[in-house]
């Protein structure tokens, strides 16, 4: 057994030994994977709040977690915990309430939402002379709402997880917008490569489909307006794509050094061969016209992995279904891979689960690993009208059997944060 425990740069090889997924399709790796490869959609008409008068009424909300009442941090926490527990159970690492490594957690924006603002506004009876925030502050000062809102501090989701799972050190909260899931994995990889820890728990969660976030993305003209039927709303790479569909979910990974994982006889689900990230200096919501930072992120990931572009067998696309993203993702891949891009299969999970925003990079990394494990590529659904400007093999509408060893998973965020991962099967 001459398996190298170090990579081409002499760093510890980082493997995945546990993962967990929640999307609007359901709870757990198996249910999600079964649905994904069968082309099922988790998208549906929103029932969480009234959608009268809204241009977009479809989303991939997660409505099956048992919460006392919905708030973004409450749902995000519940999903993060659930997926982390699935990942820990699969990895069989640590003990009850004790994980031997740090927590890297990607979380969505967290702030008071309208029901809470409204409750505070109502909170001071008979003192309605104040308006706006002065009135909210007066209610807050009354002390009646003490402890009720600790969940609206950013660190609260990570603190809850760290307390419950017993991770080591300061729990880390991060955001790189829609690249966050990939960034969380990257932070774990870097910590293990530095030799600081043998294991890391990397989680990304997003339960932030509420009325205001929906309207804000809608006002940016970023959302699909194909409301009926909901499962047809998300059309990545198709000519008639009209935007992304907001969605919720979480993904969690146990990362370990290959050496530590082998020493304890853990099953290896895959290897994080390379990570790359690049900031966009061009525009807040639009990418550089030549895709420079996307190209840079992909090239950095390949270089980190010590791989040539032609070694990529399959691309799990960012593929949001906006006109801009899908075109730029194609052009950037073409720049990196040349003509090979047209024969390399590439599919977008978002055609079925929508855009899970903060969680997307982690959820899609999990599906990438399942593709490697089972030799099945999930389809890009709703691909009926090919876009002649994007000549890609998008695995249209039906899954495909294909042996894959190396997957490129892309994540690009508003605000110009771009991250790519190269995920591979265990070295033979």
């Amino acid at each position, binding site marked *: 057994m001459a398996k190298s425990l170090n990579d081409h740069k002499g760093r510890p090889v980082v493997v995945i030994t546990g993962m967990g997924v929640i999307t609007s399709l359901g709870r757990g790796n198996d249910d999600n994977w079964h649905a994904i490869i069968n082309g099922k959609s988790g998208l549906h008409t929103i029932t969480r709040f009234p959608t*009268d008068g809204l241009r977009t009424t479809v989303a991939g909300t997660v409505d099956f977690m048992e919460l006392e009442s919905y708030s973004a941090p409450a749902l995000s926490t519940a999903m993060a915990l659930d997926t982390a527990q699935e990942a820990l159970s699969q990895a069989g690492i640590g003990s009850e309430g004790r994980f031997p490594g740090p927590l890297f957690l990607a979380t969505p924006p967290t702030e008071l939402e309208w029901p809470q603002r409204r409750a505070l506004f109502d909170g001071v009876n008979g003192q309605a002379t104040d308006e706006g*925030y002065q009135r909210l502050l007066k209610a807050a000062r009354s*002390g009646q709402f003490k402890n009720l809102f600790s969940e609206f501090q950013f660190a609260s989701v990570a603190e809850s997880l760290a307390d419950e799972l017993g991770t080591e050190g*300061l729990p880390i909260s991060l955001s*790189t917008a829609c690249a966050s899931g990939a960034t969380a994995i990257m932070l774990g990889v870097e910590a293990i490569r*530095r030799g600081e820890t043998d294991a890391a728990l990397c989680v990304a969660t997003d339960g932030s489909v509420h009325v205001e976030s929906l309207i804000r993305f809608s006002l940016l003209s970023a959302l699909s307006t194909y409301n009926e039927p909901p499962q047809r709303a998300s059309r990545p790479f198709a000519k008639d794509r009209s935007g992304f569909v907001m969605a919720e979910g979480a993904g969690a990974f146990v990362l370990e050094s290959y050496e530590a994982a082998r020493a304890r006889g853990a099953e290896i689900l895959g290897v994080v061969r390379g990570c790359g990230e690049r900031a966009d200096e061009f525009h807040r919501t639009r990418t550089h016209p030549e895709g420079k930072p996307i190209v840079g992120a992909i090239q950095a990931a390949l270089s980190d992995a010590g791989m040539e572009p032609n070694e990529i067998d399959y691309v799990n696309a960012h593929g949001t279904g906006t006109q801009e993203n899908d075109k730029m993702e194609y052009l950037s891949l073409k720049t990196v891979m040349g003509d090979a891009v047209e024969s390399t299969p590439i599919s977008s999970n978002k055609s079925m689960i929508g855009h899970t925003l903060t969680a997307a990079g982690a959820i899609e990394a999990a599906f990438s690993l399942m593709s490697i494990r089972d030799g099945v590529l999930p389809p890009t659904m709703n691909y009926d009208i090919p876009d002649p400007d994007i000549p890609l093999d998008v695995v249209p509408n039906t899954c495909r059997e294909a042996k894959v060893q190396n997957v490129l998973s892309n994540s690009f965020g508003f*605000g110009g944060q771009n991250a790519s991962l190269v995920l591979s099967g265990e070295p033979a």
Partner: protein
Amino acid sequence: MSATSGGQTVSQQPEVWVTGIGLVSSLGEGVGAHWAALAEGGDGPNVDEQSFAPYPVHALGEIDFSSQIERKSDLRQMGQWQRTGVFAAGLALKDANLAGNPDLLGKTDLIVAAGNGERDETADAAVLRALDELGTFDAKAGSVLNGILQKSLRPTLYLGELSNLLAGNISITHGVAGSSRTYKGEEMAGVSAVEDAARRIGAGQGQLFLVGGAFNSERADLSVVFELCRALWHGPFASVWERAGADGGFIMGSLGAFLVLESDKHARARGKRPYAKISHIRSGSTGGPLRKDEASKGPDDLMGALTSELNGPVGLLSGASGVKPSTEDEQGWIEQLKNHGISSAIRAYGTMLGHSLEAHFPAGIALAALAVSKRKFYRPFDDTGYECVLPGKLDRTLVTGWGHWRGKGLALVESAGKQ
């Protein structure tokens, strides 16, 4: 850098140098203004007790943002916290001789500590008024809310509200285009940001970083959240230690603090002298509301490592907030320092700058590096007697960062770059 050992040249771990500082606060802009106010001058802090009463704030003075943010279209798309941060980032890049050097900026890795962006308080007030007139929060109110929000929310301002858009704006305005990460989580975001850069430099995972954060104290949407946790100080200004000795609470301070952190090798190669080096940094969890548990050892571990090294006097820039439990916890830790024979001159820089959450720890590192480079320390910031005068020269300073409700961080900043 290399050292000779047994006839063989062995490379040492890279040092983490501070080669650029950008500071903007209620005390002014730039390192010069801050040194003058905190070390040389005798004036008290600049506190506005009226505008947000009963909450005093250290408000940002008149700043000409256009000196660092040239395009008006960029300025318009930013909230005040973003302008403050982008401005401070520009000062740091200039200070480090990176501004105007696209080759270096293109490979500068960016790490930002950020909270929530800013809401439109007027629009929120109008929504609340309209909802109130409808009575109960039912389905009808929900549909009215949809209508108002679609009219009152300005799409571009959403980008002003996303945490990671401070980083995005820095990349766009200054051309910083390496990797980009944003840490969240109140004070610990600032600790994580500096720690991430220091660890990556130490392990050769990066050479050149722009690290920091910004905070705008003049925002009622933020003070609501902190007031819900009863973390804010009410009434006339009082110093950090006075507040901790009374009911406790922090006074918010507007601040932008950015650092250029660089490996010694990279800085030497381009002929840049450092202010100082970050020789140790640790963080720890306190588990919920400052519960002590096994995982909280971070700074204590560091103290164990330092007790043999730190035999002389040391400066201690405390990031204490004045919130009672966490500030008392830190004071207990400082007592232990004394028991280990480490005499320290303590300065709670929050007394002068206000508490600036995510930006607070990076600001402490900036002030420590500045003092170490001057071989002098800051004057006592209050007259409680807790902050004694440190005689003689000083070439190292501890920086503490106890979060107001969770987590703690600690760094040792020392002189560097001696030829």
